[in-house]
């Protein structure tokens, strides 16, 4: 992979969008890998008891996945300097083979003098944003 050059990046640049699917199996896999075994991510009975429509995706699974729109484009995930997100809406994961789909787009909002860029990510599920204020600061190449 090659790191994107600052010369080719300007404010308003739109990164290639991607769609990500989350299934129940993805939630189980993330629970194991992260150590987050909160029952609302794998037990439908308990999820419904606390008023959720179904089990929901871990916010950190969503946050960890959607940044691929930036890092796949950037060419080097080690050049992420800052990453922040607000978890606004839970993503219910139905018990189907397809699971739930999240459409992710991203746009460059700032280019700084030292070759850093600030990128804003939009993540949509069922026509509603599931993350807000999702921004990534990256170090671009020379």
């Amino acid at each position, binding site marked *: *992979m090659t790191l994107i050059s600052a010369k080719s990046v300007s404010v308003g640049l739109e990164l290639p969008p991607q769609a*990500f699917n989350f299934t129940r199996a*993805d939630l189980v*896999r*993330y629970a*194991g*890998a*992260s*150590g*987050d075994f909160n029952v609302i991510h794998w037990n439908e009975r308990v999820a419904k008891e606390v008023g959720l429509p179904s089990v929901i995706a871990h*916010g*950190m*699974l969503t*946050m*960890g*996945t959607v*940044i*691929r729109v930036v*890092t*796949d484009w950037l060419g*080097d*995930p*080690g050049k*992420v*300097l*800052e*990453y*922040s*997100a*607000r*978890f606004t809406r839970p993503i219910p994961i139905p018990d189907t083979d397809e699971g739930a789909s999240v459409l992710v787009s991203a746009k460059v909002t700032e280019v700084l003098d030292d070759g850093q860029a600030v990128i804003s990510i939009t993540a949509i599920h069922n026509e509603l944003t599931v993350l807000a*204020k999702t921004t990534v600061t990256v170090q671009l190449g020379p």
Partner: protein
Amino acid sequence: MAINPEFIGRTYPPTQAYSVGREKIREFAAALGESARCFFDVDEARAMGYPDLVAPPTFAILVSMQASKQVIFDPELALDYTRVVHGEQKFVHSRPIFAGDDLTSVVSVDSIRSAAGNDMITVKTELRSTGGDLVSTAYSLLVSRGVEESP
């Protein structure tokens, strides 16, 4: 019941070091559906100038969430864990986390505020390498949802 703002700045003792292993990085990256080779292939990571496998940008949460249990279960703060949800997350990286890192965490209470009957507490976790260099800082906003008062 609102959390006492006097707890802002409270700092907890450093945790036992978290040893970042190659297989944990591979497992975590796979759980995120990642395909970038520097998460899986040591030769590729080295070819990119890194000392070992690179951890994904949100890997620090494994270390910081474990460390922040000191705050969540601090009897003096008296948070009701069953009502706590993760509201916001921010990472500031001085450098990527690499396989082979031993990371010590220092957790502190960064801010406390109340709005609409909910308590919001930002927990800051500084991850440092064995040499004491700051690797990453994680900020987690935890929202303790208020209990509706009966009339």
